[in-house]
C-alpha cells in the first residue's frame, strides 16, 4: 500500500512538468525566428542541449547585448541567451565565451582569428531599402563592420556587398544602418526563410 502510494505520487509528480512542457511548446510560426546566439555558440541543436540558462554570458557582456529569452520561443528556450542586433549588436569581445560553464559557447580568443571563427549569422542587404542603392552615399554599415574589406566591401556610392565566407554575424552593421526599417539584417546560420514571419523581430 505504501509503495503503491509512492508510485502513484511519483507518476502524478512526473506528469506535471511533462504536461507543462507540452503546453509551453509554441507552434513554429508563433516563435521568434531570427535568434542570434552569442559568439562561439555551437550549432543550434547542440547549443540547445548544452545551454542551461544560467545567465553567466549575459552578466559578463560589457555591451549588455546578450539578453535572456522569456516566452518568445516558448518554454523550450526559456532563459537561453539571445542577441537582437538592431537593439544592440555584439562587439566580439569574447567575454561570454570564456565564462560559459557547460561549453555551449566554445572558448574563443579576442583576436582576429577568434573573430573569424564566430559563426553567428550572415548579413543580408536589402537593395530596395538601402540608401546607397537609391543614388545617395551612406556607408554606415561598412564603417561599423569589425572586418572591413573582408566581411564587407563597398562599391560605387559605398554600396555594401557582404562576403558570407567572412561575415561572422555580429550585427554591428544592422545596428548602424540609418534606414528605418534597417536595410541590412543578420540572418542566423541555417535560417530558413519559408518558416516564419520573414525575420521580423
Amino acid at each position, binding site marked *: 500500500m505504501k509503495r503503491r*502510494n*509512492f*508510485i*502513484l*505520487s*511519483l*507518476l*502524478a*509528480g*512526473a*506528469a*506535471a*512538468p*511533462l504536461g*507543462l*512542457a507540452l503546453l*509551453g*511548446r509554441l507552434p513554429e510560426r508563433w516563435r521568434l525566428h531570427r535568434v542570434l546566439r552569442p559568439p562561439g555558440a555551437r550549432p543550434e541543436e547542440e547549443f*540547445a*542541449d*548544452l*545551454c*542551461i*540558462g*544560467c*545567465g*553567466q554570458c*549575459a*552578466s*559578463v*557582456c*560589457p*555591451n*549588455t547585448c546578450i*539578453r*535572456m529569452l*522569456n*516566452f518568445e520561443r*516558448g*518554454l*523550450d*528556450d*526559456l*532563459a*537561453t541567451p539571445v542577441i537582437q542586433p538592431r537593439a544592440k549588436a555584439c562587439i566580439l569581445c569574447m*567575454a561570454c565565451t570564456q*565564462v560559459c*560553464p*557547460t*561549453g555551449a559557447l566554445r572558448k574563443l580568443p579576442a583576436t582576429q582569428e577568434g573573430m573569424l571563427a564566430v559563426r553567428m549569422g550572415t548579413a543580408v542587404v536589402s537593395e530596395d531599402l538601402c540608401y546607397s542603392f537609391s543614388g545617395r552615399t551612406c556607408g554606415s554599415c561598412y564603417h561599423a563592420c569589425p572586418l572591413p574589406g573582408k566581411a564587407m566591401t563597398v562599391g560605387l556610392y559605398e554600396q555594401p556587398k557582404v562576403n558570407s565566407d567572412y561575415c561572422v554575424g555580429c550585427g554591428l552593421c544592422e545596428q548602424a544602418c540609418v534606414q528605418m526599417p534597417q536595410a541590412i539584417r543578420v540572418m542566423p546560420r541555417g535560417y530558413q526563410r519559408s518558416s516564419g514571419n520573414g525575420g521580423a523581430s
Partner: protein
Amino acid sequence: MAAPLRKRFPSGMVLLLTSVVTRVGVLLLLCGIAWNTIYINFKVAHNNARLVELSAGSTTRFFYERAEAFFGLFGDPLLIAQSSGGMTWSIRLMGVPFTDPIAALTVLSRGHGLELGFALGLLVPLLLALLFGRVFCSYICPASLLFFTIGRLRRACRRFLLLPEITLNRGVAWGLLLGGLGATWLFGQGLWALLLPYLAVGHTLFQGLAFGVLSAGIGAILVFALLDMVFGSQFTCRNLCPTGRLLGAIGSRPLVRLHRHAPACPSRCNSCATICPMGVNPRADETRDCSLCGECLVVCPVNCLHVGVKSR
C-alpha cells in the same frame, strides 16, 4: 543535562537568525551580480565617473565609484567584475564555480559530458549536503526566505483562521525531478526556470535589475507563494522542490545532525514534529530532510534537542 548542552551547541534562535541572515546575504549577492552587469557596461562604455553621472545620474555615479573602489582592491576592476556571474543554478564568485546538481543532471541527461570547471563546481554543494544534510534549503536558497516569511505570516494568522498543513507523499517531488529531467531531455531545459523556485527568483532578480525586463519566473514564484499560503507553511519546500528532495536523499545521514536526549524527552509532547517545516519527526530520530533550521529547538519545552556532530 540540558544546561551544558545549551552552552556547547548553538541554540535554536541562533540557528534561525543565522539562516535568515545568510539567506538575505545570498539575495543581496544575486542583486549585486545583476547590478554588476550594469557596472561592467558603464566601465567599458564610459570608464569615467563624470561620464557616468552625465548619462545616468548622480546616484549611479555614487554606486559606480563605490564598485570601482571595491573591485580595485583586488586588481583590475573590470576583470574582477567579470569574474563573478550567474545565479543559484550555476554561479561564479571571484572565479570559483558552484554548480547545482540538477544542472549537472540536466546536461548529462541530454547526452553530453561535463566541463571540468562545471564538474568541480559540484564539490561544494555535494559536500555541504553530505556533511550537514539539506542545509541549502534553509541557509542558501533565496526562495525559501520568501516561503519562510509566508510561513511566519501563516503562524500569526492561525490564531483566528483555520489553515491546513498538507504533507504530500515524497514521491511527488521525486516525480517532479524525473518529469523535469524527462521534459528537458525531450524538449529543452527552459522548464527548470519555472519548476525550481530558487531559479525563478534568480531569473526574476537578474532580468529585472540588470535589464528592466519582467521575467517569466515571476509567475512561478507567485504560484509557489500561493500554494504556500493555502496548503501549508513551506509547502513548496517540503513537498514540491526537486532539489530539496535530492539534497535530502544525498544528505540523509549527515555528519552534523539533530540529536535528541531521549530520557529528557516527554512522552506526550509532539511540538517538534508539529512545527517542523520539512515534515521531519525529531521524536522518531529522523535525520533525512532535516535542514537544521532550528524551529524545533525553539519550541522544545525541555530543551532535549540539540544540533551537533554525529556521536556514533
